[in-house]
């Protein structure tokens, strides 16, 4: 059968990809994509553990809430990005390095 470790590996791989995206990409929205990947890997991890180790549904609950929060955060984040674009005319992360413009 499918072991827990494989799920862990998958979530680990997703996590790494998420980190790489965040670091390597300069587009703000691409960074948000990377954040999504991170969150997903975490949620997958939770659910996998809840099935194999805990044998209850706490992991599921947590995964649900992760999804909820991710959605809210994506909404607000994108609102910020749009606002940023309206001011700076750019969505490059390096242009967002000053606190006060």
């Amino acid at each position, binding site marked *: *059968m*499918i*072991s827990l*470790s*494989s*799920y*862990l*590996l*998958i979530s*680990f791989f*997703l996590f*790494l*990809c998420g*980190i*790489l*995206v965040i*670091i*390597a*990409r*300069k587009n703000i*929205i*691409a960074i*948000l*994509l990377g954040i*999504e*990947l991170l969150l*997903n890997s975490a*949620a*997958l991890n939770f*659910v996998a553990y*809840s*099935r*194999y180790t805990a*044998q209850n*549904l706490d*992991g*599921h*609950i947590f*995964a*649900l809430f992760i*999804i*909820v*929060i*991710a*959605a*809210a955060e*994506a*909404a*607000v984040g*994108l*609102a910020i*990005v*749009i606002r940023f*674009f309206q001011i*700076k005319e*750019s*969505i*490059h992360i*390096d*242009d967002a390095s000053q606190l006060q413009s």
Partner: protein
Amino acid sequence: MFVKFLFLISTLLTLAGAIGVVAVKNIMHACVFLLASLIGVAGLYVTLGADFVSAVQLVVYVGGVVILMIFAVMLTGGDKADFFNKFGFEKVSAMGNKKTYLVGSAVLIVFTLSVGKIIFNIIDLKSSKDPQSYVSTVEQLGHLLLTDHVLAFEASSVVLLGALIGAAIIARPNRGVK
């Protein structure tokens, strides 16, 4: 059997999507690859017997968040041009160049080493636990949400409200008196 097959496809989808998000130059393509990746994750949830979570993932994440990203891309004109930074000494492409990937890889290696130290000790691909039967988790989740985790439930509703209002205010077209 079906589970294994599903697991394999989902894994492939997830990983390919992740790699795609990392590697592609076009932001739209990256969003689509994320989409694929999230669909794969949803399939993985299914193999884990988390049917409700998988459904919510598909509805909210795939159908909401990524679409939202695509909207944002459309709105900021990212699909058309490859942005460069306006300030700074050198022009860095918005999609990253070799240097950034290098830095990222270095960080990755460091991270892998540290986490791997733990993970690779406990990885045991051969052992397989006694797989449980697949039952529907909806009813139980509902029950749990309103009894054990009602605080998180209510709080998340507040969060969503805040996010809603916040997003609306931040992205308002014209600012009034500041």
